[in-house]
């Protein structure tokens, strides 16, 4: 359930009467902070954010996972997942189920590990030297980090779209059917049908149907990104991973991609990383807030943006901190 009302009305100061009880923050103190925040923005001193402070001390506080997100059937289950780049620990005990058939977004300041988490799902982090992991990420019950997992066939079950559009230097048609080609599909009719279907789903068919043999590099940035989405969904992935798919695009192209994500979300499970909070609010059903490699709060997008349980989350999504 995307929070479309947020498009026109960015989250202003929270209404005091709708705030859920927060154990760490007595309401009185909280009101004072709110005044300070409206007046001075980042004038908040240390000690106002107990969870963030604990994280900065190196602790891993128990995240606020709303009941609403824990009950739904999940396609992907991340359990106590940890990741190190050499000596650097980038992810600390991440626990989060990803709801099947829904759009889940991960937000958080730069360097909080959201992309790392996303790239852990299809084990793209394996390419980086010195990466170690612990814990499990289960795709439909099977741990993708289990011994003997075939990474190639795992990645065939997942689609991924990157920050910068990365069409291959070949024709539009060959880009779309690439995943089929590498699996050995040669029948022209099968490839042609799959190409048209994927391009239609990616809302690109009408623009490129007459130039399928043309180079993909000639498309505009937004078209290239939609082509990359078509390429990622041609094999009907169980989860579609989007790594800040709009960060290199202009506002109009961004809008089209967001519409597309909403549409694709009706067919596929989508996990999207974004640093754009309005985008998370507009497109996703669930939102996870991460900070310095920890999950901080995780719940329905509407709740995260309108009824967050942590002061940290509230101030982050309203742009007062982070």
């Amino acid at each position: 359930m995307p929070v479309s009302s947020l498009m026109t009305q960015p989250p202003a100061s929270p209404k005091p009467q709708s705030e859920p009880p927060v154990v760490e923050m007595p309401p009185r103190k909280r009101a004072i902070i709110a005044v300070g925040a409206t007046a001075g923005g980042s004038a908040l001193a240390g000690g106002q954010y107990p969870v963030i402070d604990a994280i900065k001390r190196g602790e891993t506080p128990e995240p606020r996972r709303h009941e609403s997100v824990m009950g739904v059937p999940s396609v992907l289950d991340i359990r106590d997942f940890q990741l190190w780049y050499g000596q650097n620990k980038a992810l600390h005990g991440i626990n989060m189920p990803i709801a099947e058939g829904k759009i889940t977004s991960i937000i958080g300041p730069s360097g909080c590990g959201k992309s790392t988490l996303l790239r852990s799902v299809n084990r793209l982090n394996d390419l980086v030297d010195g990466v170690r992991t612990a814990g499990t990420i289960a795709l439909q019950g099977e741990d993708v980090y289990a011994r003997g997992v075939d990474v190639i066939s795992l990645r065939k079950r997942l689609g991924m779209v990157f920050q910068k559009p990365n069409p291959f230097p070949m024709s539009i048609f060959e880009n779309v059917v690439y995943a089929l080609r590498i699996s050995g599909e040669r029948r022209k009719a099968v490839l042609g049908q799959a190409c048209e279907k994927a391009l239609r789903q990616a809302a690109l068919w009408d623009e490129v149907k007459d130039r399928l043999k043309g180079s993909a590099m000639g498309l505009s940035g937004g078209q290239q990104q939609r082509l990359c989405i078509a390429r990622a969904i041609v094999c009907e992935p169980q989860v579609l991973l989007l790594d800040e798919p709009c960060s290199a695009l202009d506002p109009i192209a961004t809008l089209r991609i967001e519409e597309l994500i909403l549409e694709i979300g009706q067919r596929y499970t989508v996990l999207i990383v974004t640093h754009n909070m309005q985008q998370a609010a507009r497109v996703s059903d669930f939102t996870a807030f991460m900070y310095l490699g920890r999950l901080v709060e995780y719940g329905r997008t509407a709740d995260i943006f309108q009824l967050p349980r942590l002061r940290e989350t509230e101030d982050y999504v309203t742009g007062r901190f982070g």
Partner: protein
Amino acid sequence: MSRSFAEFRRRTISSIMFALCAGGASLIIAILLLVIGYLVWIGVSSLSWDFLTTVPTGDVANPGGMRHAIDGTIILVALASAIGVPIGVLAGIYLAEYPGEHVATGPLRFLADVLTGVPSIVVGILGYELVVVPVSRWTHGSVSFSGYAGAAALAFIMIPIVARTTEEMLRLVPRSYREGSLALGATRAQTIFRVVLPGAFGGVATGIMLAMGRIAGETAPLLFTALGSRLLTHNPAEPFPSLTLQIYTYATGPYPEQKRLAWAGILVLLAMLFVVNLSIRIVASRHARMRMGA
């Protein structure tokens, strides 16, 4: 006053520097024009249809043409490329795509650079010792100096050049191509041969053609391997002619008619290299256009 002096000084230094740079550039162009002009002046008068289509007669006053040598050079370069290009490209892929996984690639790369700089006469002697002599022993002398030995020596020069340019060109291919392909479930080999190598095609092709141009002009590696021949032969198991060897033989000989032929041979060799270089440019610009998406 002092201000205008500073300005005068600045302008003077600037003009002097410009004059020096322009002088250097003109000198290079002048030398090039002088060489080409001299070659054309002397060579064209000896160039004829017979030169391109007939073979040496053995008569020093009327020595015939160089068809055998032109064919020989083309065949030698083709044979050397057939050996050198696959090995060089694969070695380049190894250096660029599998860094430090089995063998440390640093020393390997250094080795390739050293090989590129090995004087070509050394390659010729190596070809003699490692190919000509053993083959002659095995075949009881029926094959000794041969086109194959010459091609092997030329391939030896070609491999490090092709390997290093291939490596450099593959490194220029954005990492996002590789990640995109791997994320779709491609193996590393599929990623390299379907996405990375095509992405670097123009650069790799340019490197290959540069190497072909380089070996087409080599003489020293062929002296003790292909040996040269005055007969028209397309059988690389025999002593084999090449333009450079024929030019060398005629130019160092005593007969004026043969010296004239040597000049014409040089002109033909330069024309061939020019064609190779031109095709490099065409391939490179086509590739650039493909990448830009026109």
